């Protein structure tokens, strides 16, 4: 599989949904496979809230495969022998695209908390500019799970003629009240870290790592299912030789400690806040008198909406709700319920029915 990493700079100014204007911006991208001569084999994959451009393969500098490596690759569900797959770090992220950790041109300092609020619609705008950059007129498919699925849905609404298929996986047309509440707890934990300094920690050479770690630990619980956690950890006690922390008793505690710590090393706290805010505010129907049916009426893409039975963060009713609105709107749309062992995170992993459905969808014709 051919992997190309590239940071692409956009010189023109971009007006965000909030009204803020960015004088220019960078997008960190990774592509897999090759674009065919008529540029008709392109697939855009959108990352979930803490993901990045590294979606597949193993890069030399790090041993970790990309977040959707079980799905993207030669001969895999999204077959890179056939399709050219584009992945990017979204605007506001912290893995190479313009975001709170980048240096603002006017001040010469990192943006920090002053990086403007971004929305899912803004991401789709930047992704459209990315499509223009590659000369891609129409994506064969835009796909993603969770917040990534929301981008796929927004694509179908924002640019009906530039997307043939949208795979909206473990997602919803707006997140639940409970979800917003959980996000707020995570933000509060970060902001109350003594090193947060109202978001300007970088200028002070500090980082609210403890807050970020604890926020991630909370988030991580919501990504897994109760049964998966029970199966995996049960009430097993942690081996004393490998304790992350002296106070740790159970394996599950140690696991969360480890995951939280690893995350805090590579993620930026302001990005975390920004991404959760984008998730909270996503509601494509808002511009259509809160009518999702009216919102979907102009969509031309075929939709594939997939929910996982063990996902309690984005329960299947949310997927079915998009489907019912799509039927009312009279657009082409399929809804499937999948068994997944991993709760909300199930969308990340290959399973037979899931992969077959996604593959058949991607390869189906009019």
């Amino acid at each position: 599989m051919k992997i190309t990493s590239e940071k692409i700079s956009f010189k023109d100014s971009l007006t965000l949904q909030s009204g803020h204007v960015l004088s220019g911006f960078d997008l960190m991208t990774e592509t897999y496979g090759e674009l065919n001569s008529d540029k008709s084999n392109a697939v855009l994959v959108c990352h979930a809230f803490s993901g990045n451009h590294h979606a597949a393969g193993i890069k030399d500098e790090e041993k970790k495969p990309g977040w959707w490596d079980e799905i993207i690759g030669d001969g895999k569900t999204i077959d890179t022998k056939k399709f050219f797959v584009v992945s990017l770090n979204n605007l506001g992220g912290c893995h190479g695209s313009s975001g709170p950790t980048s240096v603002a041109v006017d001040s010469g300092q990192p943006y920090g908390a002053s990086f403007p609020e971004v929305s899912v619609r803004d991401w789709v705008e930047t992704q459209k500019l990315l499509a223009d950059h590659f000369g891609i007129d129409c994506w064969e498919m835009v796909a993603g799970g969770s917040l990534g699925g929301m981008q796929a849905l927004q694509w179908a609404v924002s640019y009906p003629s530039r997307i043939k298929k949208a795979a909206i996986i473990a997602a919803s047309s707006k997140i639940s009240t409970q979800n917003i509440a959980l996000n707020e707890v995570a933000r509060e934990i970060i902001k109350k870290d003594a090193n947060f300094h109202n978001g300007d920690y970088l200028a002070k050479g500090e980082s609210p790592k403890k807050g970020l770690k604890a926020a991630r630990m909370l988030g991580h619980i919501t990504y897994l299912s109760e049964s998966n956690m029970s199966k995996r950890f049960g009430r097993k006690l942690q081996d004393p030789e490998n304790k992350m922390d002296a106070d740790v008793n159970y394996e599950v505690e140690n696991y969360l400690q480890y995951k939280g710590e690893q995350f805090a090393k590579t993620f930026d706290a302001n990005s975390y806040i920004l991404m959760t805010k984008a998730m909270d505010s996503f509601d494509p129907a808002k511009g259509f008198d809160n009518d999702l049916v009216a919102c979907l009426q102009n969509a031309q893409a075929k939709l594939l909406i997939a929910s996982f039975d063990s996902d309690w963060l984005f329960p299947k009713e949310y997927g079915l709700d998009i489907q019912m609105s799509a039927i009312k709107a009279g657009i082409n749309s399929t809804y499937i319920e999948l068994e997944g062992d991993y709760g909300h995170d199930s969308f990340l992993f290959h399973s037979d029915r899931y992969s077959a459905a996604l593959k058949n969808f991607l390869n189906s014709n009019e």
Partner: protein
Amino acid sequence: MNNQLQSIVLDWIPNHSKVVDFGCGDGTLLKILAEKKSAIGYGVEIDGEKINACITNGVSVIQQDIDAGIQNYKGMGFDVAIMASSIQCLRRPKNAMKNILKVANECVITLPNFGNWELRLGLLKGKMPSSAQLPAKWYETKNLHLCTIADFEDLCAEESFNIKKKVYLNSRGSSSWLANTFPNLFAAEAVYLIG
């Protein structure tokens, strides 16, 4: 669904109809309706493999149990609802019939006739009969409420389900004189337009 049955259904469904097919199988009928009648179609199916076949066929499908799901389709603007060889698989066929008539203005129902002479003969031999329309063994069948043409038409009369059109087909799938003269004995399958 055999060709004869397919052409009857195609004939009854107007161009550009919005159609829902409960128990759509691999989506073949909806695909043909889209191609020949420019219909906007949605299938409802519970079987995972059949759903994947629909996706491959480019047919919109919803994974849902029909018994629980029918009433969710009210007010969706459907012109026609189809239920082909599925009514006998439902837990409450009478309720399903009532609901399906609220989903769309008209519905197409196809029914395997348990009164057909071949099946009667099979039963006379003391064994659960099978036929081309009802191939499954008794321990594997999904059918819960098999009925004869006479039974079904009695139900329609009792519940004032208005049968607008009907065609009886013999076991070879053709609309023969015998099947139409003595349907309860010689038809293997019946197809109704109710509305």
